[in-house]
């Protein structure tokens, strides 16, 4: 592998039917980037969670909208951006309840953002009002 940056892009309609394809896409990119099996699995789950959130929360299952996943890597780091043009949100205000509290409150949600943070090495959300929102996720290679 040379030091040139590799770029991949996938755009699909905002339907959960496309999550399997999104996972195949990031797995293919992760393997090519040189991630080990465990890290490929983490990447797969984090990107799935990010895209499922866009479909559910940003677009509220409006299948005419599009989910955009960008991936670039060089020797050192794999960078994923999940883009949406929905209403945006403030991730710092998403409560991080403990599992037993969630269960007691009969809430099943709130796991996605927690997983993403636990799975990736860096996570950053850019909210560009009226334009687009980007969830940036980094995974270091080795």
């Amino acid at each position, binding site marked *: 592998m040379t030091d040139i940056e590799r770029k991949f892009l996938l755009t699909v309609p905002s339907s959960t039917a496309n999550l399997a*394809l999104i996972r195949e896409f990031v797995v293919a990119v992760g393997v090519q980037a040189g991630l080990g099996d465990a890290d490929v*699995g983490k990447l797969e789950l984090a990107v799935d969670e990010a895209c499922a959130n866009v479909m559910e929360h940003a677009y509220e299952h409006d299948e005419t909208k599009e989910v955009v996943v960008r991936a670039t890597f060089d020797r050192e780091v794999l960078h994923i951006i999940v883009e949406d043009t929905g209403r945006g949100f403030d991730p710092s205000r998403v409560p991080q309840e403990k599992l037993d509290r969630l*269960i007691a409150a009969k809430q099943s949600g709130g796991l996605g953002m927690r997983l993403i943070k636990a799975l990736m090495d860096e996570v950053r959300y850019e909210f560009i009002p009226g334009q687009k929102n980007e969830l940036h996720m980094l995974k270091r290679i080795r």
Partner: protein
Amino acid sequence: MPTPFRIDTSRIDDISVMVLDGQVDAHTAPRFEEAIQAELTAGHQRIIADCAKLTYISSAGLGVFMSFIEEIRESGGDIKICSVIPKVQATFEILGFQDIFDIVADVPAAVQRFRESPVKEA
């Protein structure tokens, strides 16, 4: 391809054994939810989730386990999870599922667990 997923439910005595086959994500989790609901509606509170063929689970699937567990335990039943492949186990562990759920080696162990401790002890 739409996510490949199917559930087959069979019974060992009074225990429902649900074989999860394929991937549970936000697309297929509703089918998993319906399958558990169907057991509860039929009065079956003792459920084994056989995960030997479960190759992937996201928070949508984890949320299904979480949303039912209180109700099931309150009525004296439980969900025992078994035969989890390492990749899925890794996901369970990130969220601390092993503190909440009874996760055992295989179906016989899960049946045995229902005999010995019907509800997971804290």
